[in-house]
């Protein structure tokens, strides 16, 4: 009984079919519980007022947005090394979720930044690297859509994902460097986690767990539908012959 057994699409479908409802229900429970805890049962921040509650959505979505890319990187490497189709499809399935989370992170950040920093957008290193992450997701998704042959598409996107990861890390450090060069005043880049008091911290952790569960549920769902789509395509091709 090895982990690689689930590279078999039939076994994967079976296991994911069992797991999916659990993940979905758990995700729904934790997100609803965490968000309502955060929204209604925590005090307003003395400086930020009620806007601090945006962070209950902002931080988890940003967290998932970054880690979705890592998941895609691992899945891409597994595809290139072991040629398991489920792995390639899982990477493909994670990309739209990742880009959606990136957009949620950027939008909620803008909504929070307007009252707090007085601007919708600031060329702060964190914001800038999120914008760059968005571009990486965009290129990855478009490349999947542009190539007709599924195996070629999987190969090309996997290489792009690996190269992109190297350059994404480079960009992260480059934006840090670049922004220091522009203005030394670093008061905007509050490291949120370290400054958060316990009252805000616990509901935040619950929502983050909820978002991670939601990510797993959505990836499973998307991968399953990709596998079924491919199977349907194969059946149709066979019936034409």
């Amino acid at each position, binding site marked *: 009984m090895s982990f690689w057994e689930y590279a078999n699409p039939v076994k994967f479908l079976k296991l994911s079919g069992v797991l999916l409802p659990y993940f979905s229900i758990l995700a729904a429970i934790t997100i609803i519980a965490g968000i309502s805890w955060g929204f209604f049962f925590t005090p307003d921040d003395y400086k930020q007022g009620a806007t601090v509650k945006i962070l209950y959505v902002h931080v988890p979505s940003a967290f998932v947005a970054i880690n979705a890319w890592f998941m895609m990187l691992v899945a891409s490497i597994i595809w290139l090394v072991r040629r398991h189709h489920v792995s390639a499809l899982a990477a493909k399935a994670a990309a739209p979720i990742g880009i959606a989370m990136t957009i949620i992170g950027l939008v909620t950040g803008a909504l929070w930044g307007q009252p707090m920093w007085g601007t919708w957008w600031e060329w702060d290193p964190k914001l800038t690297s999120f914008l*760059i992450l968005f*571009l*990486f997701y*965009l*290129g990855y998704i*478009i*490349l999947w859509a*542009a*190539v007709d042959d599924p195996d*070629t598409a999987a*190969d*090309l996107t996997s*290489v*792009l994902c*690996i*190269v*992109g990861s*190297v*350059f*994404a890390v*480079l*960009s992260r450090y*480059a*934006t840090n*460097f*670049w922004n220091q*060069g522009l203005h030394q005043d670093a008061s905007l880049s509050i490291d949120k986690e370290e400054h958060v008091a316990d009252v805000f911290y616990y509901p935040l952790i619950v929502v983050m767990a909820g978002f991670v569960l939601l990510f797993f549920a959505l990836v499973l769902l998307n991968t399953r539908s990709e596998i079924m789509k491919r199977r349907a395509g194969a059946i149709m091709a066979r019936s034409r012959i």
Partner: protein
Amino acid sequence: MIALIIRDLKISVRAGGGFGLSLAFFFIIVIFFPFAIGPDLDLLSKVAPGTLWLGALLACLLSLERIFALDFEDGTLDLLATSSLPLESVVISKALVHWLTTGLPLVLLTPFFGILLGLQNNNIIFLIISLIFGTPALSIIGTFGAALTAGMKRGGLLLSILVLPLYIPTLIFGAEAARRGIQGFETQNSILLLLGVSLLSWAILPFAAASVLRINLR
């Protein structure tokens, strides 16, 4: 490999080879920029390093599609792939030719364009150094992008979307080095980082581009 480089160089300088296209584009950006911003030399000299870097990047982007498209269409790339020359070397020679025909001329023309944009003589040197170290990275990264989209009929837009995020570190460090130099700050860190990005790209991307070409040629 040398024969391949000479062949590609010859093709690119012939009429319609695309050698003039990116230079003309760079030229247009530099000439038209003052019309858009206004003739104030102080203001122009402030934005000059960024403008020239952006111009170099866009001019580079414009000529990327040609790196593999023609050779892919007429089958030259298949021959190169089956020849005894490793595909990695083919990628390196293609990137080198791209740099010789776009990056190097841009660097050589920068002194004149710098004057047009109000830079002082001793400041232009920073711009030239940053472009010399940075444009090779633009060429090899672009070659990787061109290899990714080699099999596609109209890959131009896709190519730019794929390559743009990869260009960000080079652009940041390059423009930063030039700007710092012109404002009289120390430039060593940014120039070393720029050089690092360039060397890293030349070290890893030929392998990535060659593997992608093999996939596209399958």
